[in-house]
């Protein structure tokens, strides 16, 4: 790491997001004129701050990697792509939130502050190159999300979701921290001076140079606990039980945000860790493959019986996490030979996943009326006659989630198939194929409800008026899902720099 520029410039986008958060927080609570216009001012200031942060991020995209805090945080093309995806997620979520919060009488400035702070945590996660920094970043993201999940204070379901999310999240944090302690203990001799280290770049270099005589029990246990912690946070089977409850109970705009945000942040982190530990992939490769298969099948099979669309999408997000993990696993094959290919496929799929998840939850927000959320399959009956716009965009998202051409979800799956077959993980590819066929059943069931069923008196019939923010977000995500599915090269070019991951 010596000789590389080490300055705060490496985390300018994250700093901008944090400052925007403080401005909104202080403005909303201390400036009376701001407070009376908070409804419009809070989201617009947040979005402007995010756009500035993304602008700085994009101007860096082709530049050399840089570090900050003595190598604990790294600004490489990989993290820049991650930050781009995270920033887009936050912008779309804020657009989705505005009228939804007003309908639920939750229009408080703190909402946007928490969105920005959790995004700050996510940005540090994708940039963290040191395990303790990583831990602090994960908790920054998680603690803000616990509060957001319980943001509808008067609804018992929202509070219950927050409690479950919090207890399981804290449990996972315990595993993570203990795992880090064990990795630290087992990393003796990996740093350049022969000392133990938690710096991923030093670990990667040390492992690649054969600094470790043999993998100690301690390092093995540490990695296992680390992955248990990640599996909890990313809702991988068998650590997924909190996901459906939390996704159902949290306000829908929060669900959309956290579904996309946590997946992007956690999987970029897993990619970085797997890349660093690729030389000893023999320790973790098989376990992760088993978890991937369990997650792919578990998520899809459990999703089949759900009548609540939010729950169904939660289980489907579990399944998608399995697809992404399958691509990540390929990083470890033959000590990282297929790393670039795997990273490319993972980031592309994360991009596709972000668009279709935010979009499909966005449609549910679009259809929610004052005082009652659109949540169940029943609420979607006969939608194509009542609200053709909502029905057609939902159709696009369902096709994309199901991986049916010509959508982005299909291209993403194709790329994962490609990397699995090239790296000799054909059994995983077969599991992915079979599970995708199961998934088409429950995605098309939504379409069936929308197109061929008549609404009954339990159906939420009229939506709230004036939702320009929601319609903008939903239209953009739907159009992108289609266009980037037809012309995947554009998205591939956006995520291509990610293969340039700093590991030395």
């Amino acid at each position, binding site marked *: 790491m010596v000789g590389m520029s080490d300055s705060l410039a490496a985390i300018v986008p994250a700093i901008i997001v944090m400052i925007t958060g403080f401005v909104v927080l202080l403005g909303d609570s201390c400036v009376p004129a701001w407070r009376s216009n908070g409804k419009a001012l809070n989201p617009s200031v947040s979005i402007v701050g995010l756009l500035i942060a993304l602008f700085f991020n994009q101007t860096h995209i082709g530049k050399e990697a840089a570090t900050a805090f003595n190598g604990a945080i790294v600004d490489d093309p990989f993290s820049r792509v991650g930050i781009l995806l995270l920033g887009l997620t936050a912008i779309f979520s804020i657009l989705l939130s505005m009228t939804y919060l007003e309908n639920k009488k939750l229009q408080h400035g703190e909402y946007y502050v928490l969105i920005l702070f959790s995004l700050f945590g996510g940005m540090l996660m994708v940039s963290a190159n040191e395990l*303790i920094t990583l831990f602090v970043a994960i908790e920054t993201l998680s603690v803000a999300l616990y509060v957001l999940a319980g943001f509808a204070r008067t609804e018992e379901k929202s509070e219950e979701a927050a409690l479950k999310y919090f207890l399981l999240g804290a449990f996972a944090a*315990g595993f993570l*921290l203990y795992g880090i302690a064990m990795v630290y203990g087992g990393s003796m001799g990996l740093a350049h001076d022969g000392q133990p280290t938690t710096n991923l770049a030093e670990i990667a270099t040390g492992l690649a140079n054969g600094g470790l005589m043999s993998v100690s029990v301690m390092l093995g246990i540490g990695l296992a606990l680390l992955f248990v912690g990640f599996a909890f946070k990313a809702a991988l089977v068998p650590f997924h039980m909190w996901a459906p409850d939390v996704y159902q109970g949290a306000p829908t705009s929060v669900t959309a945000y956290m579904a996309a945000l946590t997946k992007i942040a956690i999987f970029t982190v897993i990619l970085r860790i797997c890349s660093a530990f690729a030389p000893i992939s023999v320790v973790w490769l098989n376990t992760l493959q088993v978890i991937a298969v369990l997650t792919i099948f578990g998520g899809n099979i459990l999703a089949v019986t759900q009548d609540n669309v939010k729950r169904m999408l939660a289980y489907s997000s579990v399944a998608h996490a399995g697809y992404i993990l399958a691509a990540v696993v390929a990083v470890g094959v033959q000590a990282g030979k297929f790393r670039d290919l795997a990273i490319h496929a993972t980031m592309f799929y994360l991009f596709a996943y972000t668009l279709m998840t935010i979009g499909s939850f966005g449609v549910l927000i679009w259809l929610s009326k004052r005082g009652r959320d659109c949540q169940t399959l029943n609420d979607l009956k006969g939608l194509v006659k009542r609200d053709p716009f909502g029905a057609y965009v939902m159709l696009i998202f369902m096709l994309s989630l199901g991986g049916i051409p010509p959508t982005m979800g299909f291209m993403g799956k194709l790329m994962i198939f490609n990397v699995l077959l090239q790296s000799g993980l054909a059994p995983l590819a077969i599991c992915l194929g079979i599970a995708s066929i199961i998934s088409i059943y429950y995605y098309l069931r939504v379409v069936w409800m929308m197109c061929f069923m008549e609404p009954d008196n339990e159906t939420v019939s009229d939506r709230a008026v004036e939702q320009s923010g929601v319609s903008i977000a939903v239209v953009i995500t739907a159009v992108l899902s289609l266009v980037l599915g037809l012309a995947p090269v554009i998205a591939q070019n956006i995520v291509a720099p990610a293969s340039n991951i700093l590991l030395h």
Partner: protein
Amino acid sequence: MITTSHFLVLSAILFTTGVIGVLVKRNPIVIFMCVELMLNAANLSFIALGRHFGQVNGQMYVIFALAVAAAEVSVGLGIIVAIFRAKETINVDEVNLLKS
């Protein structure tokens, strides 16, 4: 003579106690205490390993972990109070509106 491995064994015992506590206890506050036990077991490992390696890093990491744990406590207790206001109970078996 108390060696590093004594500390590590103690921390492993504390960690396991914490995990079992989280799995069997039904009161969120007790569950959270068990989570704290897990975190502090990790902290003990860090300190012991830092001492063993003669490196200040291990001890410094504990400060970070403590700060994170403090932030988690404040949010967690806030959520538990909110649940108690709504339901008059915080037993996790009775907080069960969300299921398939």
